[in-house]
């Protein structure tokens, strides 16, 4: 159905896609896997018309579609999932998809009300069908911005369904989604494929998910030779072994925090602690308030009750910026790098509040993430997902914080990169920094955690060491998928 011939794409000197040829059969669910930086997303973007290729051709059933823009491909039934309009409701998000609606033209809207209404009724009916198909009935009237991560993924899928596509490109629908939801997304994809004849091509990092759905699976190799990691001691230079005795009170405490963004409390009486030289992990089902709990510790949430203490000092009333000056580093989940600035400038901005020489912290970040040193002049927006995540963490480390907070650092990266990131986080821990992170990959995160917090509906459900939580049958059954 889609044939790609010898596709190349170069950004400056970087070869993002280097001579890829592949074919996607009609009615198949083709999986695309490969390490981070292999150019999977870029390949999608080229096929979907976001970037014109430097070389090579793309055919849709023998029609040459190379270089056509995304909207032209949309009309040919080639769709790439895109983010939802966050200010529209779920239902509105779906009804705005079909192109060429009669009501779009003012004359029609005024003078041919009947026709417009009939068409709108039909589109609304289809949207209702899609909402039901995806099990989004309960949130149909909600604004899309208020949905949980998983529901947004389903909505993305729903938007593509409204366009009645011939082929759908899915870029990591599973990223940042828990097991249960992943299963329902997988079911939806399978049913669309079997019952409605959709062709899918998907990038996915979750091997189980891929192997359940995809036939065939295409493996992409690195566009350029992979990075060889330096052997030997990879501790940060300047790492100080912790000689401090364990204090009675933890270094960072969010104590009995209750609060949210608006009137509703998202977290209730929630307590989170982190100790220097330890990793604390917050896990839990989607919508449990994990990110909110961490943001509350960082001062990004209005607290109605509770306190936050850093090294015994009450910082409850401080703004996030002031907390950065107190030695807290925060890596947001999204939009966590300056995409228009170079890697080096990103790191410089991280050290913005430090007066004087920043060569030392920068050298340490480069030791931790050697690939960043090599790419330091490249614009951060051109990096792969895993590399961007490294820039984001590096940026937060530039202030030499005493606490590092990470909001889902491994969302949307491949298992290999995830393992690598976890390795680096362990190295950061060894320097004596307190680490607090929210993780979707609960089992892997708990396996490196010194302490773990399982949150459910904004409250502490289980609190223990990572290993103990992993061994707890109830935790395993409810949150880790068996």
């Amino acid at each position, binding site marked *: 159905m889609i044939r790609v011939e010898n596709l190349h794409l170069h950004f400056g000197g970087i070869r993002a896609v280097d001579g890829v040829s592949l074919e996607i059969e009609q009615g198949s669910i083709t999986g695309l896997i490969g390490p981070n930086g292999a150019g999977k997303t870029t390949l999608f973007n080229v096929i979907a018309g976001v970037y014109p290729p430097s070389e090579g051709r793309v055919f849709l059933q023998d029609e040459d579609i190379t270089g056509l823009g995304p909207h032209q491909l949309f009309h040919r039934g080639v769709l790439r999932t895109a983010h939802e309009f966050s200010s529209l409701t779920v239902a509105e998000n779906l009804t705005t998809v079909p192109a060429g609606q009669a009501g779009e033209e003012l004359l029609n809207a005024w003078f041919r009300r009947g026709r417009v209404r009939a068409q709108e009724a039909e589109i609304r009916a289809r949207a209702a069908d899609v909402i039901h198909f995806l099990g989004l009935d309960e949130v149909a009237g909600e604004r899309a911005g208020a949905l949980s991560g998983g529901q947004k993924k389903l909505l993305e899928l729903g938007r593509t369904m409204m366009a009645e596509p011939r082929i759908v490109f899915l870029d990591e629908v599973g990223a940042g989604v828990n097991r249960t939801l992943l299963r329902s997304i997988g079911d939806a994809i399978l049913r669309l494929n079997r019952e409605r004849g959709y062709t899918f091509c998907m990038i996915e990092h979750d091997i189980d998910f891929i192997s359940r759905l995809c036939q065939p699976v295409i493996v992409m190799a690195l566009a350029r030779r992979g990075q060889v990691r330096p052997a030997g001691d990879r501790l940060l230079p300047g790492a100080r072994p912790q000689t401090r005795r364990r204090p009675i009170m933890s270094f960072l405490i969010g104590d009995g925090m209750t609060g949210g963004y608006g009137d509703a409390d998202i977290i209730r009486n929630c307590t989170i602690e982190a100790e220097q030289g330890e990793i604390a992990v917050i896990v839990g089902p989607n919508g449990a308030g994990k990110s909110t709990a961490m943001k509350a510790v960082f001062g990004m949430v209005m607290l109605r009750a509770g306190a936050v203490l850093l090294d015994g000092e009450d910082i409850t009333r401080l703004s*996030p*910026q002031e907390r*950065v*000056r107190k030695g807290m580093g*925060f890596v*947001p989940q999204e*939009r*966590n*790098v*300056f*995409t*228009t*600035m170079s890697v080096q*400038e990103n790191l*410089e*901005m*991280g050290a*913005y*509040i430090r007066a004087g020489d920043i060569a030392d912290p920068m050298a340490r970040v480069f030791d931790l993430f050697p690939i960043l040193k090599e790419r330091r002049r490249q614009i951060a927006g051109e990096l792969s997902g895993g590399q961007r995540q490294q820039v984001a963490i590096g*940026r937060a480390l530039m*202030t030499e914080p005493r606490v590092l907070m990470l909001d889902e650092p491994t969302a949307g990266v491949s298992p290999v990169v995830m393992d690598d990131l976890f390795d680096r986080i362990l190295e950061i821990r060894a320097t004596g920094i307190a680490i607090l992170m929210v993780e979707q990959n609960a089992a892997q995160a708990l396996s490196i955690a010194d302490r773990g917090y399982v949150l459910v509906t904004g409250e502490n459900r289980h609190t223990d060491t990572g290993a103990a939580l992993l061994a707890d049958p109830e935790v395993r059954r409810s949150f880790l998928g068996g």
Partner: protein
Amino acid sequence: MTDVANAIVLLLNFVIVPGVAYGSQLALGALGVTLVFGILRFANFAHGDVMAFGTMVVLLTTWWFQGMGVGIAPLPTALIALPFGIAAAAAFNLTADRLVFRFYRRRKSPPVILLIASIGVMFALQGIVRLIIGPNDQRLADGARFIIKASEFKAATGLKEGLAIKLSQGLTVAVTAIAVAALFLFLQRSRAGKAMRAYSDNEDLALLSGVNPDRVVLYAWLIAATLAAVAGTMYGIDKSFKPFTYFQLLLPTFSSAILGGIGHPVGAVVGAFIVALSETGVTYAYKKFLRYLLPESWEPGGLVQLLSTDYKLAISFVILVVVLLVRPTGIFRGRVLS
């Protein structure tokens, strides 16, 4: 062969040279608009009249200097009066921010509200300028008129067509080149410039990195005021100073910024030259130009002018509409105006 040379000189004299000078003036204006947009996230409609305000102060100072007999002939006296205009424009921008824009910024009002507030500031400023100096045309240029005179050029080359380059045109291009180079150095190299780029790129992350938003906003207003006063003065020296003309400059200025990709400084400069050369290129009567190139029997009957100069503004407008329809992010993929 001389025909071809004549044709080229003709085009240079009537299209390229005035277009480049005008493009430089627009570039300075568009840079100001784009910077304010990148940092404060709204389209500042008062920018054209800040140009008028700054130029007015330059003009008043110039008269004062002329009265005292101070000058830097052959260069125009306005050049030494320019710092006064910059200071006045900066003072105005900071006052307007303190009285109007800061209020909406603190309330996190949507960009549209700020845009409309800026229209209010624009009307108020138009009143101030007319109260002080009146609505009439004023001459700002003094000193030497030409770098190259048409008659000298003809004598030197033996061509039938002359090329004249006014001193004001040469000055405009030189001053713009210096201003743009200084601005780019500032944005790329200095700590404050990087903070501004970071703030424009990702406000939340910039705040997390400890960038002081008040400081960044202050820099944006100061730089925008400087650029506005310089652009206005250069335009005034090159043509003349009339408050209403400066208000009209708003449209080509915005078209340039949006064409280049709003929020993107390089884009603003490129956009400005495209808009300016389109204006001079489309309104030029090509009859004489074609007469040099075509055989005699093909000589065009009409003026071969695509649009009358009365429609100059329409060109910016058409460019604006086409960009917004075809590529709302502009050439360099700036932000989408909302």
